[in-house]
């Protein structure tokens, strides 16, 4: 919770400022020295003179005390990681329209398959390296970066999730061809 310490420090009387002297990099003068969250509804009058319009987060200069080099790296990584999700189209043989799933939300095949089965109300069965999904009604396949149709489950999850472009749930009878080497 934000601690309102402005009054304790009697800052109004001293009118302290932050910001580098004569510097162009900090065009906004910050009167408020507390890190304020953009999520806060500014109920306190102290923050009234600030631009509360997101997306720029109001921050205290030089706080938290992390070197700019370090903060750039971390921020870049996060942006990259969170960007847009990884949505791929999913089609199922016989279904009138396609769906979309975000592969980033899942961490493993069982999670994905469970979600697909829920989404399409079908049973996909268990994967085996030798038999593929033989014996089940449906088999999940995907188109990879090279444009080939592959059986879901052969490669490590991370490799799959980064190379999968779209998914297709095939009828078991058709999928037989894919299950063999």
């Amino acid at each position, binding site marked *: *919770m*934000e*601690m309102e*310490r402005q009054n*304790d*420090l*009697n800052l109004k009387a*001293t*009118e*302290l*400022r*932050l*910001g*580098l*002297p*004569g*510097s162009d*990099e900090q065009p906004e*003068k910050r009167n408020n*020295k*507390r*890190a304020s*969250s*953009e*999520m806060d509804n500014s109920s306190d009058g102290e923050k009234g003179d600030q631009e509360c319009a997101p997306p720029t*987060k109001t*921050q*205290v*200069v*030089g*706080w*938290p*005390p*992390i*070197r*700019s*080099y*370090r*903060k750039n*790296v*971390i*921020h870049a*990584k*996060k942006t*990259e*990681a*969170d960007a847009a999700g990884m949505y791929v189209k999913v089609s199922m043989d016989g279904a009138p329209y396609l769906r979309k799933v975000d592969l*980033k*939300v899942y*961490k493993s095949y069982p999670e994905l398959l469970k979600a697909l089965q829920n989404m399409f109300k079908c049973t996909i069965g268990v994967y085996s390296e030798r038999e593929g999904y033989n014996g089940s009604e449906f088999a999940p396949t995907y188109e990879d970066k090279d444009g080939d149709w592959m059986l879901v489950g052969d490669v*490590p999850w*991370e*490799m799959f999730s*980064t190379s999968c472009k779209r998914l297709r749930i095939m009828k078991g009878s058709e999928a037989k061809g894919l299950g063999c080497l």
Partner: protein
Amino acid sequence: MAMGKGYARAYYGTEHATAVQRKSSAHLLISGVSNAYTLEVLRVFGNPILQVLKGLSFESAMVPDPKRCNSCKDSASSRDSPEWTRPSPFPDEVLDRVLSLMESHKDRSSVSLVCKDWYNAERWSRSHVFIGNCYSVSPEIVARRFPNIRSVTLKGKPRFSDFNLVPQNWGADICSWLAVFAAAYPFLEELRLKRMAVSDESLEFIATSFPCFKSLSLLSCDGFSTDGLKSMASHCKNLTELDLQENVMDDLGGGWLSCFPENFVTLEVLNFASLNSDVSFDALEALVTRCKSLRVLKVNKTITLEQLQRLLVRAPQLVELGTGSFQQDLMPRVYAELESAFNNCKNLHTLSGLWEANFLYLPVLYVASAGLTFLNLSYACLRSNELANLVAHCPSLRRLWFAVIIVSKTEVLDTVEDKGLEAVGSSCPLLEELRVFPADPFDQDIVHGVTESGFVAVSRGCRRLHYVLYFCRQMSNAAVATIVQNCPDFTHFRLCIMNPGQPDYLTNEPMDEAFGAVVKTCTKLQRLAVSGLLTDLTFEYIGKYAKNLETLSVAFAGSSDLGMQCVLGGCTKLRKLEIRDCPFGNAALLSGLEKYESMRSLWMSACNVTMNGCRLLAKEMPRLNVEVMKDDESDDSQADKILKIASLETARKQM
């Protein structure tokens, strides 16, 4: 050397027959030296280990020369021991020999205070000078006092310049120093600069003015570009070290690496991890191949895993490795080759880099991780379970740095990072240093991150922990008390609760008792950074208990002048004090008058100090550099930022 017959060899903590000089001078090999005189020399430093030498018996002693050292009688500081009142002739050879083994600059300072002869002996024998603040002394004075310097360490800007609190063009330019060094130390070999302003012209000057130049280390410096590196690579024929860390520099391209001549083979340390541009991989591979003494290699993130494998094959002798990007779609064959390359690196003890680490490939490290003592995962951004898996393979770890990121918003948020720390606690019993950087410091949406429970978990498992830097969003007094009880040997305790003025999240009370526990329990504490909601009580505790404290960082804390007064009055060994956004005013500032001369520097910004207070300080203490940095718009009476440096000069020369 023509000495008397008897000599004693003293080994402490080492089986090696060579002189092992540790920082504290605790381990010292004395050979070929008459020990009676050595004892007197060494006793001066009060080093308890060397007192043991007293018990050794010697076969013979040097005949003293009564003509020498009459000036010893007027010693600058009369030591406690009464022996100094009698004339104590001390042959130069003995003193010189002992001094040649002495590297600690603190010990050397002590030596120089004994008497004039010793001052002279010391200054002639010193080859490395450490200047903690470039404005505390002028280069001319340094050159006059120390004629034989080969290596210089210089630190410039106040630490808060890292966080953009110091104006641009503040100073700390190396060029005035270089001009003096070129004349006084033509055989200069090494420069280690921290927070200095360094231009390309200066780098070219170094490269062309010092034919013996070997070692350049630039940490948090600014003002240069890769063009300056080109000069270094092209001209320094004997370069052994090029170490670039966290500098603010212009990366104009990686061509500098190709400037090392083909017959250049001396490189031992190369760290360009902080540069972003591509370098010629062929040039890098060729360089690594021909520099057989290379022991530290830290590449930047443009180097791929496959390229890394090729480099490792060329340099299996590496002791420290910074990888490039650790993410690539690897064919199984290449994966196996990479693992094999790591397996051949038998001497690896430090690992860093690991940008964008794809956790699938981390297992290649396992073959080399048993011997790792320092793992820097700050840029790997691992998830907690990935961290746990990795540290499980690092039982010898002494130092760990990391930052953990949340990738998926569906994860449970409040303890997942702590799980990584729990794993550290159970896997790394030898851990001495831990630095945990925030997941995303500027994302206010994220209220999680590591909590107190992660820290407590580490303290339970890692009893040797003595250095911690911990960023978190919540902490409790009870947790900190537990932590220091588990680990009472802290020398560096830097806790950053990221919301300013945040109280104990369990009790809603100030965090005074937390830091009280730290200073009461950790008697060896040298460095402390406080945070959270703190009243003057914290500073009363600090002043009362933190008798070994040398560095204190304070932000958004305290209630009145009393806080700062307690610290200035109580912390006898205080050397650096940096304060921002605290209610300390002129009374506090002026209470430390006697203290400031023994301190390296004081920084105060956004406090309640006025210009009049600063003027008074400057008037009372003419030997201090008192500098005030003001915002253009603030009113005349307000002193926004003050920096005080104890200095031998009366004014800091502007750039």
